[in-house]
């Protein structure tokens, strides 16, 4: 599982960071950073929650 964020859509509202702070971080420069692009299967449920809750539908999961 690889996390893909469409940075043109992302508006740095940090919803994903609240769900998975170990994977997503909005830093002081107001940009979103992906801390772990390829989390393991154990994190799938949380990442899917991020995909669902992102208000901009900016996050997707690539299976490769």
């Amino acid at each position, binding site marked *: 599982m690889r996390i893909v964020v469409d940075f043109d859509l992302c*508006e740095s*509202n940090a919803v994903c960071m609240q769900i998975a702070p170990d994977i997503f971080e909005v830093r002081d420069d107001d940009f979103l950073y992906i801390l772990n692009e390829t989390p393991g299967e154990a994190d799938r449920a949380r990442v899917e929650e991020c995909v*669902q*809750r992102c208000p901009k539908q900016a996050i997707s999961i690539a299976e490769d």
Partner: protein
Amino acid sequence: MTRTPRAVTIVGASLAGLNAAEALRREGFDGPVTLIGAETHLPYDRPPLSKQVLAGDWEPERAALTDPEELEEDGIEARLGVRATALDLDARQLALHTGETVEFDGLVIATGARCRTMPGTEGIGGVHVLRSLDDCLALRADFEAMPQRVVVVGAGFIGAEVAATARGRGLDVTMVEALPTPLSRVLGDEMGEVCAEVHRDHGVDLRTAVGVESISGDGRVERVTLSDGSTIDADVVVVGIGVIPNTEWLDGSGLEVDDGVVCDASCLAADRVTAAGDVARWPNELFGETMRVEHWDNAAQQGAHAARRLLDAAAGPFTPVPWFWSDQYDRKIQLAGRVHGDDEVRVVTGSVDERRFAAIYGRAGRIVGVLGFNRPRHVMRYRALIEQGASFDEALAAEY
């Protein structure tokens, strides 16, 4: 006798309704799922209607929340342009405006809310409200005609965003607010004043502590008369004075309606009937308060919760920390929690003068809210503290 429904009908095909439908499938529900929506459009996102779409930066298609292929893949049947007019809980039937009656088993009520209007303005051209895509496109067309003066009635979040977008288009804007300080009921006086200053800095003529007496014109709007007797010339007026939940169709159904559909803590309104989104009122146990929330995040979350609750009585109470954002000019304003005008407010990071800060709200020793101006990271950190029920002192001591 409660049991799991064999089929689920969702009334209201917008954010809460669509999230309910998708959650049913995610949870493995394999019975029929039907979405009934009064608008002719497939579910779309409303926040861009006062921002990118109104600004002309996005075409409406970009606000779509789904498409026919996705619905088909998920096995969700959408009946659009169809309004539910009555609910019969005993017969488990819905009446539709087409004259049809349809049976249902499980039901999610997600009919949202509509804008409050100013009496006496019906039929005056150039007077707008903003809730639907059609409203947005009508207002956008009026903005594109480069009006001389736009008057926004109400400086709540929608009014404020419309004012910001109109200024972004180079239009002359006057905003009229009945309260002495805009948003003081939701943010307190001090932070409401910060919002007011942002508009003034961007050239909005903000008039506070004054009501609107009338909006008039010969066929098309010409002026707005204020309660102090003054008048403002106007060729476009946008009325943003709050919303009313769409519950009239439930009259006589036996469901309790009190400024929204009254639910229990788990979003259940009756046997196999749940409600979600702007239309739902429920006791949020995290705050010990009954609330109806008009935010995007709540509609999405509650839609999903209402679906899970239909499938599983053990879904538990719905206990979110309400959260929303508002984009005005280059500021991203976010508020999480339940803030009252008289809470204690402390700026915890950044500078109010630079309009880049986070402030937290405390009541009875607990942190109950956080407001951020271009501080999304902090808002989410403090939101987590609110969720944990942290004390105000603990929150003040936290370093993020």
